[in-house]
């Protein structure tokens, strides 16, 4: 009798912990207009800038809507303190962004500061960034997923696990605090650099020390390849030629990506006030969002044995 009732209690407990959910409608007012800036400058390259607008929260999203948000015809000027470069309309796709303005005069240099000025019919915005000195990696090596499972020692790896490759890196941080990095990868014939969830690093915890860590394969790579499974996420494959773009960035640039990953990744706490994505875009007239960021780029190549 007692045993039975305990079983019933247990079944009831299972039933209890199932939450239920349903669709609701939120009645939101018309949003305040913002100019969304995504601009970047790298050594030996012209500045590129993408300008668009924010859209009402529950509007359906398709390519036509996204295209309608693009801002063309703005005055976009980059200055290095000596010269000015008025960016020209372009159609350049990189970093999963369609850049619609590109410089023609000023190429980025390590250690320099660049000012961005944007003028539209109703807005005037300003931003400043630097291209920090490069922080190169010490070394790269790989381990198969099968080896990782064997190290954990509980489960036998599947044949496919032998094919999946985790890329490791060693990085030595300079002695002074305040170094930040954003990493991208691409492989083989891919032309787009992509970044993974954990693609930004701060030296707050590791300042002045050496660290070894896994570099995940960029997550955007998966957006166009539905055949990859959850288990394969973040791994490269045997025989890949891997390119790593390891970029030092300044604090505002890091803060932007850090808050952005918090806001999209979700902090896992539905009760918390949502994270507001930081911006270094300053509205002189009207409002701006987004980032104007310099990348102190260094590129490495690693070929995984077939």
């Amino acid at each position: 009798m007692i045993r039975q009732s305990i079983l019933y209690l247990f079944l009831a407990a299972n039933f209890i912990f199932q939450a239920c959910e349903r669709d609701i409608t939120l009645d939101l007012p018309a949003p305040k207009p913002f100019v969304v800036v995504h601009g970047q400058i790298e050594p030996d390259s012209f500045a590129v800038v993408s300008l668009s607008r924010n859209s009402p929260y529950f509007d359906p999203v398709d390519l036509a809507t996204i295209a309608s948000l693009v801002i063309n015809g703005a005055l976009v000027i980059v200055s290095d303190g000596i010269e000015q470069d008025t960016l020209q309309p372009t159609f350049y796709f990189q970093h999963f962004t369609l850049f619609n303005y590109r410089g023609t005069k000023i190429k980025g240099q390590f250690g320099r500061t660049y000012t961005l000025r944007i003028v539209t019919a109703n807005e005037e915005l300003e931003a400043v960034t630097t291209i920090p000195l490069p922080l190169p990696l010490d070394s790269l090596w790989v381990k198969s997923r099968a080896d990782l499972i064997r190290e954990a020692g509980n489960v036998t790896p599947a044949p496919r696990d032998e094919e999946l490759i985790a890329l490791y890196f060693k990085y030595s941080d300079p002695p002074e605090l305040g170094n930040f990095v954003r990493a991208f990868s691409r492989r083989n014939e891919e032309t787009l650099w992509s970044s993974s969830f954990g693609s930004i690093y701060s030296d707050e915890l590791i300042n002045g020390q050496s660290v070894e860590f896994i570099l995940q394969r960029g997550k955007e790579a998966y957006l166009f390849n539905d055949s990859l499974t959850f288990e394969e996420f973040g791994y490269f494959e045997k025989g890949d030629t891997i390119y790593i773009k390891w970029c030092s960035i300044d604090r505002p640039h890091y803060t932007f990506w850090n808050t952005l990953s918090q806001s999209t990744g979700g902090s896992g706490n539905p009760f918390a006030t949502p994270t507001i994505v930081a911006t270094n875009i300053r509205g002189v007239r009207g409002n701006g969002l987004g980032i104007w960021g310099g990348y102190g780029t260094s590129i490495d190549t690693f070929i995984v044995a077939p």
Partner: protein
Amino acid sequence: MNLLALKRQKRGIIFTFLFLVVFSITPLLAQKYTLSGYIRSESGETLIAANLYIKELQKGAIANEYGFYSVTIDKGVYEISVSYLGFSTQSIQVTLDKNISYNFKLKSSVITRQEIVVESTRPDENTKDVGMGRIDLDVAKIKTLPALMGEVDIIKAIQLLPGVQSAGEGNTGFYVRGGGPDQNLILLDEAVVYNAAHLLGFFSVFNADAINNATIIKGGVPANYGGRISSVLNITMKDGSDQEYITQGGVGLIASRLTTEGPLVNGKSSFILSGRRTYIDVLAEPFIPDDARAKGSSYYFYDLNAKANYRISDKDRIYWSAYFGRDVFVFNNQESGFKFSVPWGNATTTLRWNHLFNSKLFLNTSVIYSDFDFGTSVEQSQFQFSLNSGVKNLTTKLDFDYYPSLRHQIKFGGQHIYHVFQPSVVQARSGENNFELPGVKNLFAHEFALYINDQWDISDAFQANIGLRASAFRQVGPYIFERYADPNLFELIERREYKRGDRVADYGGLEPRLGLRYSLNSKSSIKAGVTRNLQYIHLASSSGNALPTDLWIPSTEKVRPQIGWQYSLGYFRNFDENMWESSVEVYYKTLENQIDFRDGAVNGLNSNIENDLVFGTGEAYGAEFFLKKRTGKLTGWVGYTLAWAWRQFPDIMEGRRYPYKFDRRHDISLVASYDLDKRWTFSSTFVFATGNAFTVPESRYFIEGRIIDQIGDRNQYRLANYHRMDLAAVYTPKKQGKRVESTWTFAIYNVYSRLNPYFIYIENEGSLQQQSLNVQAKQVSLFPIIPSVTWNFKF
């Protein structure tokens, strides 16, 4: 405030004190004698704040926290009656021609169910007591109310009172009159309980079997309490019977309880030991196959309470009590070797010595240690990461009760608290390398307070509660002060480092407390109160939901102490020979130096959490309506609260005022309990509350193909209204055999299965690459209708 000013204040307090003592001794010149002693239950349990009533004088007195009472009155013959919640009233005839010591022993009336009519407190306490917003809870009565999954919860019963709100569905976080969760002083045998919640707030840490008494003070906090600005929840553990050994326990839906108590030395010394543990993990373990991916994952919580006391003589008694509780959550993934574990919990211990100098002067000395710890560790192959945070304190206290005459009940004393805060210590290991966040790990501070409080019957109709508390706080090093030029912390403009023991910041101030009661007639009275409270510690909460990840931090050079002012006014009236009590109270409250996270703060690694905080003010006002039926087969109450609560921060929303997260316009509670006969008691509760405020994204934009939310103003939206009805029936069968008593509690939580909102989230269906994306807001509800059965036994 500098130390000189503080000394001046202290001198002022000493003068006030001397004045009061001299003033109150004068009436002694008449021919007066003192009747004093203790009020306890038959089994030796202290009856805290029991009422003593002198029929001839139509005057009363209240026992202190240790059951001690003292009345000094003219020579004569008196009928003295003593009453206490859930106990039968006892009356004695006293011929007072010398000082007399008499100990009352009251019989319980609930547990034996000998009488149907339960005489609870002094019948006219509602209108005669000067205290406003102070409510004693009858733990035995709470046990008959419906509870979530059958787990009797004192905090959830408190949430049914007007002016006290819950954080949300099934949550034990509570909010008093627009104040924050850190502004409630939660005491367990005088020890601070920093986080009173288990399992993400669904259950509180208080095991009702080990609890003797629970009192909440939501306004007009007397001067003997300090350190928090909203309320005091004072919970006292049982002493244990000094007459016989009793074992009791219960088997419930999710947890089991076992308590044993008894005499160590008959009539002189007793102990109690009580434990509770959830057991879903234990029951589920055998059914999980060894090769399951998540084998080794589990969740449980437990509580242990222990207390012992020894009566050395009529004048001296010592108590030791302790609490230890933990939540343990482990997530294990065998395949990847990934292991995530999160233990957290409270520990407290209290050592007390009661000493009676004479029949009028009582002293309690306490040494208290209290601790809250939270840990997270993540392990995967060669990587290891851990985060620890916590807070602890060591308190020493002296509390005097002085009863110079029937017109005065004076409390005075002082305390020192040594605080140690560990906001967050992060450690990581990668292979052979170890990493630690730079900066300071622990923060240290001293808190001092002196107080005096007099409950003074100025005339038969007019009573005053006058108190003054002087408190001071000193933060000592190590500490790093940092100031940034901009809210996003891009540019550091000032940095100062303090070494261990260096004086960093001093704060202090006076905390006047005043309460007045004027009786209009024998049935009604008007009460008014004004209090100023200082609070030197803060809870940096990202959720407002009493999650264990919230961090306690001290006042520092940067974070200033919280200041609360509360003004309240009320009308109290009893009907039908005190069978019905009613009251209307209005309050207005201001809060200074409130903290919140700045916009764009990122939860995670941060060597100095202060840099992520912004500072502002709060304002709250409202009205509370209360109607209670005290006696008869049917008892219960209706409470309604109409309230507003606001916050204003210069660095949030450009300084515009916004609703507090727990701003709740309407809050209704209905509680009814019906004693059918000796076997059956039925009860029901109904609650209605305006939906919680929350923040939503107002628009969105695209960066690198990702959809980014642009967040709108804070707390501008409301979840759907919350309402729920619960039912319970308690059945007491005939005694099985000679000794075993048992009861069955059948309860239904959420009878009409209302899907109340727990939180909402926004889901993106489809993807950008498929060129179609639908955005849908979803509301998550947690608890549908939940029946439960609990079996309790006692022998």
